[in-house]
């Protein structure tokens, strides 16, 4: 009998009390200007961090020592769970995810304290108050509807075990990246609220916010990417994105944050769009809460079966508070926020960015609409109807293609008003290359109009980026010793601009991966006896045998398949089915052979117990690897853009 549950609960309640205290004191300190209060709230922030860290360590310790007196431990691990999955089981379900979330928030809060207590002494107490207030909400959730340290009596001899789908390396990193992204958006939100409350709605805070937004955006992108990879190599359906409500929940803040990263530049450059940027920040933060609400409330069915208890009601109440509160502040400060500048011309960088924002918001709205449609149809017509992938694809594909086009136009078109000369100089060659590329690809036999359009746009944008980079390097070459150092210096000195370009290149590669995999992947499903083969797209897959084995926490049936290409034997693939005692349906274990052009992907289906036959699904998925490569390029670009800005503002 341990007292870990009581200790954990005490830590949680103490963290809640301290967060509430720190939030109030910081707000009073900000309003009254009393320094002692501010110092006290800083100490409270440190205290919250220490307490949350203790909570996490205590729970990890409970997992490592199989302390099944804690309900959460017993529900998410058993004696067969491998060592590192016992640590990642920490965020395998709701309660632990909330702790992790609160902990990340407390880390971000500490960084904010450390960075801005001297640089922004009047402004940042409000930021701290908002962040601690949000942290307090998470501690409230940990105290009432989802206590991670709830006691289980009697203590079971063994635990239930982690959801087998989560026993995967992708699950170690995916939630962490995703939550770092979600919680990261708290910082821009807190700055925005501080600006509205204090009335200091100048432009300084938006510059601070921009870097924090990129940081959160970077992690969210990484999280989405790893989520796609997990879906691809674990779920066994051969896809990476299903427009599932939970995927959409993570995608929507990504879309609005992407819009924000672009429109912030207009505010920095032209003092426009203050109101709009604040709205985007609020929307992005609201969507992260909405995402958690959607995932955890169970109001909309999803393959991600997470729903539980009254957590949904708590999140909805908090979402309502955040949205109504922040938009009311916005309305209150309305007069200070309206821009004085007008758009000079429809053919300008401002308008390209505005159009980009409109399109990204249209995509967000579409995804939101499609996600809540089952609720809407039930409320209006009394029938629950889901919209599937066809709806999302139909509406979003044209939007994303238009965004690709703007990706080429935006960075190069002139501010204010583009002259005919500016247009000719920057876009004549790229447009020609795009058209020629489309013609050549058509002659090479690509008939799919959407793929052709996508590839032509990719060629167009790539040339605009190459052209710009080449010109800039050539200009720099006059002072730098060599081409290479000129290019390197450019990347580091104008890291914002060129980090952005690298992100764009990553998106282009992802776009090719999406287009190629949607258009050209093929699959077949068949039942084979040992020695028989199935052929698909030049591959011959031979069924050799079935073998059964007892693993630490499940029973596994593995098929052995030899893959040949023409006469050469390429690989032996071993897809399996895993039978966990706590799961009704077996879990597929996919085996694959990844390649730059195509992946061979084999899933074991039904089989005879005596090994006399087995059903397999064979897929040749084309260009899926481009998604991961593009994603990697994208995150590198984002990292480059996060580096401190070397240019001094003029």
């Amino acid at each position, binding site marked *: 009998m341990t007292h870990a549950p009581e200790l954990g609960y005490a830590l949680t309640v103490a963290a809640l009390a301290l967060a509430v205290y720190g939030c109030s004191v910081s707000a009073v300190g900000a309003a009254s200007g009393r320094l002692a209060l501010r110092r006290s709230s800083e100490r409270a922030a440190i205290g919250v961090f220490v307490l949350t860290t203790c909570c996490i360590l205590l729970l990890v310790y409970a997992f490592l020592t199989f302390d099944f007196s804690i309900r959460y431990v017993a529900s998410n691990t058993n004696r067969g769970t491998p060592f590192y999955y016992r640590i990642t089981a920490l965020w395998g379900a709701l309660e632990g995810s909330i702790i992790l979330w609160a902990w990340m928030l407390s880390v971000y809060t500490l960084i904010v304290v450390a960075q801005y207590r001297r640089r922004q002494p009047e402004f940042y107490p409000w930021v701290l108050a908002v962040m601690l207030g949000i942290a307090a909400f998470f501690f409230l959730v940990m105290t009432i509807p989802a206590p991670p340290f709830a006691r289980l009596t009697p203590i079971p001899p063994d635990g239930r075990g982690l959801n087998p789908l989560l026993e995967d390396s992708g699950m170690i990193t995916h939630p962490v990246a995703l939550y770092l992204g979600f919680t990261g958006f708290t910082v821009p939100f807190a700055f925005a609220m501080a600006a509205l409350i204090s009335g200091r709605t100048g432009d300084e805070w938006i510059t601070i916010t921009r870097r924090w937004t990129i940081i959160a955006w970077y992690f969210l992108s990484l999280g989405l990417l790893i989520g796609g990879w997990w879906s691809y190599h674990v779920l066994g359906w051969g896809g990476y994105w299903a427009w599932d409500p939970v995927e959409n929940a993570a995608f929507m803040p990504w879309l609005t944050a992407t819009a924000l990263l672009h429109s912030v530049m207009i505010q920095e450059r032209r003092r426009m769009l203050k109101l709009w940027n604040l709205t985007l920040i609020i929307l992005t933060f609201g969507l992260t809460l909405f995402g958690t609400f959607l995932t955890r*409330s*169970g109001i909309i069915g999803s393959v991600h079966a997470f*729903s539980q208890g009254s957590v949904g*009601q708590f999140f909805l109440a908090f979402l309502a508070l955040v949205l109504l509160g922040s938009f009311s502040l*916005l309305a209150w400060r309305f007069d200070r926020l309206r821009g004085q500048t007008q758009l000079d011309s429809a053919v300008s960088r401002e308008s390209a960015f505005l159009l980009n924002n409109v399109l990204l918001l249209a995509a967000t709205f579409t995804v939101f609409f499609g996600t809540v449609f089952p609720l809407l149809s039930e409320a209006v017509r009394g029938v629950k109807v889901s919209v599937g992938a066809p709806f999302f694809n139909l509406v979003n594909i044209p939007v994303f293609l238009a965004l690709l086009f703007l990706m080429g136009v935006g960075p190069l078109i002139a501010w204010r008003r583009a002259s005919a000369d500016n247009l000719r100089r920057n876009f004549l060659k790229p447009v020609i290359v795009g058209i020629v590329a489309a013609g050549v690809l058509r002659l090479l036999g690509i008939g799919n109009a959407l793929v052709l359009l996508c590839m032509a746009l990719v060629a167009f944008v790539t040339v605009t980026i190459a052209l710009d980079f080449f010109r800039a390097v050539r200009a720099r070459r006059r002072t730098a010793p060599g081409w290479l150092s000129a290019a390197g210096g450019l990347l580091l000195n104008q890291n914002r601009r060129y980090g952005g370009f690298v992100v764009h290149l990553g998106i282009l590669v992802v776009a090719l991966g999406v287009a190629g995999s949607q258009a050209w992947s093929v699959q077949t499903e068949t039942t084979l006896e040992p020695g028989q083969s199935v052929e698909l797209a030049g591959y011959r897959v031979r069924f050799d045998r079935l073998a059964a084995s007892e693993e630490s926490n499940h029973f596994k049936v593995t098929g052995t398949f030899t893959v040949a290409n023409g006469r050469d034997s390429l690989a032996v693939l071993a897809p399996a089915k895993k039978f966990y005692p706590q799961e009704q349906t077996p879990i597929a274990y996919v085996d694959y052979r990844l390649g730059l052009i195509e992946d061979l992907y084999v899933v074991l289906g039904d089989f005879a117990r005596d090994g006399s036959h087995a059903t397999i699904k064979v897929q040749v998925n084309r260009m899926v690897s481009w998604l991961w490569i593009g994603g990697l390029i994208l995150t590198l670009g984002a990292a480059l853009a996060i580096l401190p800005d070397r240019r001094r503002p003029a």
Partner: protein
Amino acid sequence: MSFPRHAGRWLIPLAVLPVLILLAYGFRTNPRDVPSPLIGKPAAPFSLRAFDGESLSLEALRGRVVVVNFWASWCVPSCYEEAPALERGWLAYKDRGVALIGVNIQDKEEPAKKFLAEFGHTFPNAPDPAGRVSVDYGVYGVPETFFIDRAGRIRFKHVGAITDEVLKRNVDALLAEPA
């Protein structure tokens, strides 16, 4: 009296209200609450050998209200949380002609017997070694509890840990029906 300038700005916060109301509406129903097609249908007959060696047959219980509970010793925490309620329900209703049967599925004998001993269950419990009964009842995840009326029809199904209230409510409803 002059209308305040920019009163329309307050439409910004108001615009989120419909969305919030829609989301709140979502709590009215549970998307996972798929009605079992077995409700109202005759309960599939089964005969099992209980852990104590007795034979257990649903047919033999015709004319009585029967509660069938599917469980497993690895089912943490739900089966552990409901176990005391089951025993309490059994003690309260066994003299009123109600039969309670525990069906242990996808389990091993040793931990299952340990589970029964730990909770001191006195109602009959039997393993379902081939999983046939759980398939017949469409058991998706343990624990699930089925309430069968005197005519041998499945009338209610409860998914997840059962509580004293749910047990009492459903059993009382079936007992109140004319024999």
